[in-house]
């Protein structure tokens, strides 16, 4: 009975969907937590203008930005990790903060 109950807890933890979301921060302030299961396009106001963020099929990308070099747009679709626009001080973090990835940081 105990074993059954314990295995039930483990089963529920594994089967329940994880809260996949995109956190959008502007200038250090959290402005949105958006679930990845709903397709949408939003815009946020940064210090130099509007940044447009699209969510589609559990992936995220920046589609419009007032920055000069457009590196954030060039990053393309992301299903995990982060998209950053330094000039407009926008950070989009995708996935759970504690999820395990093949690489922990890059240089």
């Amino acid at each position, binding site marked *: *009975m*105990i074993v059954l*109950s*314990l295995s039930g807890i483990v089963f529920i933890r594994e089967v329940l969907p994880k809260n996949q979301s995109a956190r959008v*921060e502007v*200038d*250090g302030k959290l402005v949105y937590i958006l679930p990845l299961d709903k397709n949408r396009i939003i815009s946020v106001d940064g210090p130099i203008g509007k940044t447009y963020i699209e969510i589609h099929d559990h992936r995220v990308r920046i589609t419009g930005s007032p920055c*000069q*070099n457009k590196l954030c747009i060039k990053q*393309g679709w992301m299903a995990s990790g*982060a998209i*950053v626009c*330094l*000039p407009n*001080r926008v*950070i989009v*973090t995708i996935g759970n*903060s*504690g999820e*395990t990835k*093949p*690489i*922990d*940081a*890059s*240089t």
Partner: protein
Amino acid sequence: MLITVCSLLCVLCSCSPPKEGIYKKSKILMDTLVTITVVSGTKENAEKAIDTAFLELENLEKRASFFSPESEISRINSNAGVSGVKVSSDILAILSRSLYVSEKTSGAFDISIGTVSSLYDFHKQIKPDLYIIRKNLPLVNYRDIIIDENKSSVFLKKKNMRIDTGGIAKGFAADKAVEILKKQGIHSGIVAVAGEIKTFGLKPDGKPWKIGIRNPRATDREDDIMATTELTDMAISTSGDYERFFVSEGKRYHHLLDPKTGLPAGDCMSVTVIAKEAVFTDAFATGVFILGPEKGLKLLDEMGFEGIIVDSRGKMHLTSGIRGKVEFKKAS
């Protein structure tokens, strides 16, 4: 029976120690993305420690900024040729380590390049005339930075001299943040101030932290990482000509300027350095980039550091001790 099972479960749950997890937070600081990753038993402890470290880095940024007129660095620059300026222990530490790296790299790393680097604007794709660069070059000399440790003051000998700690302060910040995290009871994590990374402790699965090394000529996300290495209690930094650059008339103008010419150094695409402290991996990566593969590799070996130099033709040069510690991605 049900009550017994529930009670047993409660006892089991309360006896087991909290499972450690990995918590991560990013912030734009020091004009770049700073990501702090920690291992902690609770989210609350992790966030408290990370926020304390971020606060310390914000304070450091205010003092070390090249652009803010109120920073200690700006006060040193505006008093160049006039008087010494009293500075905090952190700025003193950054500057004395800068001079140490300048000596070791025979002036290839030199924070007084600020006089010339401020003539470039990599966002607006502006490069100064050669004539203006040459006119300012006599102001680039680390030997004209006078540090008085007893008075905690710094004096720039020549008027209009400008120091820019952009090539070392981020590494210093990574070391500093790790210090703060440890004081907060965190025993494992990574601080990444852009590409200046300091690791400590192990992951919850007992493995070291896996760090990717960027391909300086990546064409897409598939070939973005050229190698990986596993680190604990070590720092790693990469300086590359792909970080801040523009192309004009077929020539790449990047931010790693040779203090002798005031022009972008041309012998390397990227340099990765692995050592104990991020303040040194940061500064030596820049210095070695400017020295070039031959002299650079010799210096890394002399310092007991490990490193990877990708030269201007894309050929890799490795320090003697790095083989076996880095896994290179096979070309597809």
